[in-house]
């Protein structure tokens, strides 16, 4: 007995609820992220000033962008800040996590101490560190009062190192979370691996470097995403700490974008800078996102 073949019902209506529930996500992705991005790119080829205007000027905005010292400084800064943040966050975060993983006492206390800055906004972070790094009141003055009168530590007022002054605050705010992620990653590693390494007589540091860290790939990926997305966005911190100063020494791209869009009332220029930022994000992120979420594997 073979009953009649029934046609396959429409694909569209299978799992209809799931599709309905995904509408916010789809709208956000399409309207805001794709639409907003396309809109931005579109107007970056115009000479829009205060209001978007579709009068095209070709690549003029880009030519001007790459001839502007302020933009170049911003790019250089974000490069330094980005690389340093990446390296130091990972290194410090990992070292702290490794220390915390030694079955220490007061683990909760230490963890809370390392994590609490994450609860504070960049505005607050920036203000606090601006205060501490202020040469007239802060560390420099305190050390001088202790007798080392020639001691100089005023990163926020020295154009050459100001970006590192910002880095100090940025790391303070962000490493706690990285530490937490790493700790979770470390705890997720099979205890047998540690035992095997001990039986093999491999010293702790070697076990970490050659065995454990390579095994933490998934955590490292997550961490990298979090750090990287933070780097691109760095803005509040700079504004709160230095307003881009001294001079334009601590400019960052996000600030350039904001300033040109709203202060200079040159949307076209701001959009051109945005587009450059987006482009770099896309170059870095899309291949990764594709590998990570691009279908085939079920559990990301």
């Amino acid at each position, binding site marked *: 007995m073979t009953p009649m073949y029934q046609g396959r019902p429409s694909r569209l209506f299978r799992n209809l609820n799931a599709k309905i529930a995904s509408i916010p996500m789809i709208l956000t992705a399409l309207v805001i992220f794709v639409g907003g991005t396309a809109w931005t790119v579109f107007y970056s080829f115009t000479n829009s000033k205060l209001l978007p205007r579709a009068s095209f000027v070709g690549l003029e905005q880009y030519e001007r962008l790459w001839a502007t010292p302020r933009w170049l400084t911003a790019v250089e800064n974000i490069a330094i800040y980005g690389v340093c943040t990446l390296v130091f966050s990972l290194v410090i975060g990992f070292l702290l996590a490794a220390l915390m993983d030694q079955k220490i006492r007061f683990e909760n206390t230490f963890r809370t101490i390392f994590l609490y800055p994450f609860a504070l906004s960049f505005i607050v972070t920036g203000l606090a560190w601006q205060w501490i790094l202020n040469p007239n009141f802060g560390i420099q003055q305190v050390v001088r009062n202790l007798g080392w009168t020639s001691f100089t530590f005023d990163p926020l007022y020295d154009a050459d190192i100001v970006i590192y002054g910002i880095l100090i605050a940025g790391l303070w705010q962000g490493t706690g979370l990285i530490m937490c992620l790493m700790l979770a990653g470390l705890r997720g590693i099979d205890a047998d*691996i540690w035992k095997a390494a001990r039986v093999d*007589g491999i010293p702790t540091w070697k076990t970490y470097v050659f065995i454990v860290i390579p*095994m933490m790939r998934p955590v490292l990926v997550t961490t990298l995403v979090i750090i990287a997305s933070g780097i691109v966005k760095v803005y509040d911190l700079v504004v709160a700490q230095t307003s881009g100063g001294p001079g334009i020494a601590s400019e960052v791209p996000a600030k350039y974008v904001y300033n040109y869009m709203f202060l200079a009332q040159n949307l076209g220029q701001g959009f051109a800078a945005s587009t450059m930022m987006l482009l770099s994000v896309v170059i870095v992120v899309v291949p990764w996102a594709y590998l990570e979420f691009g279908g085939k594997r079920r559990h990301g």
Partner: protein
Amino acid sequence: MTSVVVKDVSLSFGAYDVLKELNLDVPEGEFLVLLGPSGCGKSTLLNCIAGLLDVSDGQIFIKGKNVTWEEPKDRGIGMVFQSYALYPQMTVEGNLSFGLKTAGMAKDEIARRIARAAEILQIEPLLKRKPAALSGGQRQRVAIGRALVRDVDVFLFDEPLSNLDAKLRSELRVEIKRLHQKLANTMIYVTHDQIEAMTLADRIAVMRGGVIQQLDAPQVIYNRPVNRFVAGFLGSPGMNFLDGEIEGGAEPAFAIAGAKIPLDRYGFDAVAAPGKAVLGIRPEHIALGDVARAMPFSADAGVELVEPMGSDTLVWTKLGGQGFAFRVEAERHLASGDQLRIGFDPARASLFDGQSGNRI
């Protein structure tokens, strides 16, 4: 000469005592299996011997040397884990050589040892692969190799085959046995698979709740378990247990509902005090039909359920109202509802005290 001695070792996690004054002597070259249910402390004991856990009390000797406070790498032991614990980002060769390199061994000596281990374990073609590209059995071989290259006196295995499927498990079981015959090292092997325990062990230590219940050769443990726990733990299909009462007197017998099993042929360990007891008899020791009738004890029984297992068949009946299984050859065709005569020789049975569960 004893190879591993565990002396009065206790271990507690906080207030929870996992091992309780445990003693164990393992002669050189012996294959000792630690068998017991989950959570009984097998792995803990193995980790103590390996030095991966600090004992709370007691001492551990390996080759006559007190190693209680030694680091694992200085104890002359190698260990193989259930989860293989291979270093995933190194090749097989890297896995094998990493410990040796760290110890600063000469290159050619390392190469020699790896070659030997690879040959013994037949993993030569795999040396350049990463663990992810290996099957479970191959991984476990590499894990064994990692212990092998270290040229140790004592091998410790913690359920090395539990993650493998049945077929691979029986293959690797044979290989481990051969390896032992070849190397003649001391091996301590944790498992909760009793077939593994029976086939591999020179002696089995059956553990329960951190205490060794019985330590003896497999056949002894199988045939003369010291208590009901050991009896029930070994054997698959499991031993049949019949609750009843021992009747003393001139002709001691074991009484169950509707039947009396004569115990004159039973070799008592202790004095057979009359009272509640449990009689255990293994399914393969039960005879059918005419053979059964010739046995010191026999009774009629109806077939309730037939479980063909391929090589043989398990038949479930009731004896004195209690579930009772026996094994017949696969060729014997029985069906639910069949009536037949079953019997056994009480000399092959085990009697346990009703209260303590100890063998009588």
